[in-house]
């Protein structure tokens, strides 16, 4: 160091907005997706797909519009969130386009692109119009009511592939349960932010566990019943697991009471065991998980899970390369629930690890925003939203890889499914909003640029 620089006055501390970094990362995300798209064409037909420029331009435009919305409306937002979402969404489109080549009669990529566009539009809408996430706190009970309606409605529609989670009107279908996730996270965050002290400090203590009182036990039992109800009435193990896991995590973060966790896990275990034993659809999934190759031994050929495991194994360390795998052998749901198998086969353990790390990064940034925020509602909301992503990735990835019983659920951003991709874009929009709030300098502390963690009372 030279004397001059040492003598120079320290530069004014200014919290960088990092929008340039975001833009650079976005360019990278778009380029990687375009490269994947071209690689599929090169592998299959020895030629770059003719519409690669159009595809790249379309994805680039969507990314640019989202970026501009963030730049002007949430300038302090975390710069990693949007690029990760664009990359995952772009990769998902590549994988679906790649699988479309195997099923010429069933083209899913164009529809998925339309849904992605709608998702980005909603993302921009949320970023532009939701100026402060705390507004949502006011609509807690409206949220939970809407969520309940959304979850109950599909029960009156016919089951699709064993699960009653779809609403079909004409040729248009969507899963309302996807939207209910966000609404429930909002409700949980609001409810817990308001009641966390009561929940944390009342109740009897038995040995080391502090048990909740009956008065506040009500909501938890209600949620448990709701999850089991979803499980039984809609035969959707995944959503049930997700709701319950989300609630337990948020409850723990809000109160720090291990007693709640104990009660929650106990209830979950009882519910899962009973339903897993007696509900035939769920029971068969559990059997599949215990022995994925039973159907082969019985001479009925490999089941979906076995095919999925074959696909992952075929990928090995480095993968077969995009367009060169045979994950279509999985058959039904190869583009939706089992999309990860295509990633595993064609990108290998290396690519799969990269995908998992992208999700981990997304979740970590959500948690980070939660840590940095000052208001309990914002904290719980960002933890909740990030946890939705984490749990969803774990439940479906663990399911298709034989780690836990398989449950029908969409891999965030990757899987085919309009409701899912739209919901995930909204989740990312909300995370952008809270992270903007978290990193935004407080008016009275602008010059320091340091965000002091909120002092709080720990029990």
């Amino acid at each position, binding site marked *: 160091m030279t004397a001059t620089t040492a003598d120079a006055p320290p530069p004014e501390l200014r919290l960088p907005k990092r929008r340039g970094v975001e833009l650079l990362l976005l360019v990278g995300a778009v380029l990687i997706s375009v490269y994947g798209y071209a690689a599929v064409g090169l592998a299959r037909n020895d030629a770059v797909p003719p519409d690669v420029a159009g595809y790249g331009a379309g994805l680039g435009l969507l990314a640019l519009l989202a970026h501009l919305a963030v730049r002007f409306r949430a300038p302090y937002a975390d710069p990693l969130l949007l690029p990760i979402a664009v990359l995952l969404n772009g990769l998902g489109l590549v994988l679906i386009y790649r699988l479309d080549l195997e099923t010429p009669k069933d083209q899913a990529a164009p529809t998925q692109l339309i849904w992605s566009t709608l998702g980005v539009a909603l993302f921009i809408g949320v970023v532009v119009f939701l100026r402060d996430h705390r507004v949502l706190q006011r609509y807690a009970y409206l949220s939970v009511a809407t969520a309940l309606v959304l979850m109950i409605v599909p029960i009156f529609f016919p089951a699709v592939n064993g699960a009653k989670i779809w609403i079909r009107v004409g040729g248009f279908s969507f899963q309302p349960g996807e939207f209910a996730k966000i609404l429930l996270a909002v409700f949980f965050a609001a409810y817990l932010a308001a009641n966390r002290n009561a929940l944390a400090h009342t109740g009897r203590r038995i040995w080391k566990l502090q048990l909740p009182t009956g008065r506040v036990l009500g909501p938890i039992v209600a949620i448990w019943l709701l999850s089991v109800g979803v499980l039984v009435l809609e035969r959707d193990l995944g959503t049930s697991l997700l709701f319950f896991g989300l609630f337990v995590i948020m409850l723990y973060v809000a109160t720090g009471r291990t007693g709640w966790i104990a009660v929650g896990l106990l209830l979950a275990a009882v519910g899962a065991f009973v339903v897993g034993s007696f509900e035939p659809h769920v029971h068969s999934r559990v059997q599949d998980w215990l022995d994925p190759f039973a159907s082969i031994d019985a001479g009925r050929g490999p089941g979906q899970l076995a095919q999925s495991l074959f696909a*992952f194994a075929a990928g090995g360390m480095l993968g077969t390369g995009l367009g060169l795998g*045979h994950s279509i*052998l999985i058959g039904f749901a190869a583009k939706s629930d089992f999309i990860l198998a295509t990633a595993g086969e064609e990108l290998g353990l290396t690519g799969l690890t990269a995908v998992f790390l992208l999700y981990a990064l997304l979740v970590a940034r959500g948690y980070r925003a939660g840590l940095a925020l000052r208001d309990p509602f914002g904290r719980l909301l960002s933890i909740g939203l990030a946890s939705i992503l984490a749990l969803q990735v774990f439940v479906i990835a663990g399911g298709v890889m034989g*780690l836990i019983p398989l449950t029908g659920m969409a891999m965030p951003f990757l899987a085919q499914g309009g409701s899912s991709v739209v919901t995930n874009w909204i989740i990312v929009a909300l995370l952008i909003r809270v992270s903007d709030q978290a990193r935004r300098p407080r008016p009275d502390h602008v010059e320091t640029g340091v965000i002091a963690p909120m002092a709080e009372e720990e029990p």
Partner: protein
Amino acid sequence: MIRYIRRAAALCLLLLVALLLNAARIQVLDADSLDHNPANRRLTIARYSQPRGNILVGGKSVTGTKDTGEQLKYERTYTNGPLYAPVTGYASQTYGTTLIENAEDGILSGTDSMLAPFPLWNEITRSQQPGGNVVTTIKDSMQRAAYDGLGGRRGAVAAVEPSTGRILALVSTPSYDPGLLSGTGSSVTDAWQQLNAAKSQPMLNRAIRQTYPPGSTFKIVTAAAALDADVVTDPDNETDTPSPYVLPGTSTTLPNEAEGCENTSLAEAIRVSCNTVMAELGVRVGLKGMVDAVRKFGFNDTGLKIPSGVAKSNFDTEMSDDQLALSSIGQFDTTATPLQMAMVASAVANGGDLKYPYLVDRTTTRSGSTVHRNGSHTYHQAMSPRTAVQLRRMMVDVVEQGTGSNAAIDGVKVGGKTGTAQHGIDNSGRPYAWFISWAQAPDSAQPAVAVAVVVEDAAANRADISGGGSAAPIARSVMQAALGK
């Protein structure tokens, strides 16, 4: 709250680690067993994703592939299926492979590591080698001569080059078109069922997979044993054998079909095919001597491969003297494949030096550079050179003045031996007609070919005539083809 958020984040990290460990378990640790699970279609798809290599006869491919546009992309075709079926076998997407298609599958399908210039680099890039070619030792003109000669009758022809062991013709009729079995679907399964149900057993490769009682052709083996064991010192001397002959330890008499066999010489016994002489000589050699002698010709060898496995030709190793007597004239439990009997003729023709028979000359990459070349090597010294010289003369006599005159070729030294084998309950079945022979061009130092022909449903009354009548003309045309006449 911060502490709890951190703990929740730790939980998420735990989930991530669980996913990554599980991914490594499936994609790396268990990958091999999953890849090779028989229910996993990937190996099959990869196998048919590129054209299969070809099988060559006389420099020309007798196989091909066609693009089906289905999941299993390329399907096998055969240019002259029934003619070469006993050589090529079939390569079916439904029923697997047989014969050369099976034995050289690694080369043909491109999976053989020898095809790749840099095997390790190949593992990483997962690049597939194009299927290599298999060049057979078959001579097209001989194959056709044998096939036409059999003319659809049940039977088989095997021809080898005595000096090298190269298999020059391998025919089994009635045959089938292996192309019918190439693909998948109901047409293939129907064809399969039909072929398997057919009474004529068209998919049976009679030349190497069917054994027949060799009958009188086996007398060449017994004669070699007797000469080598000095049971007979001069083939032109009288042998002191009665006719008819009472089987040792029994009251059963063994008759002769031929006249004047009593006490006759070995040479004469071969020329007119005397049962009594050869049965007695077999007994005089003894069980141990006979078993040792037949082993050197290839009998009782379960491991003979050309490269496909050849059915074991049998000579019992434990039996009583009366059974030994019958076995020595190619009856009782003695059985042989046509290829085995061609090897017997080959051993005699080549001075006792029996070469190991082989059907694949070399394997090449798609572009034609050699991957592996099969060389000639000795299987056994089947008899002493002196014995071979004596037997050659006796076999020539059979053709020039004996039962095998139908095999004679003008200006060519031809040696042969006829045979008829009774079979069925009380010998009620139509006899099998046998003929084994060899031919040597006058200007050549080495015999050109050794042939064995068997015709199953030869209609004939007198035993040895049927071998000479039905089978010898086929052997003759095959030998002519070998000599280029």
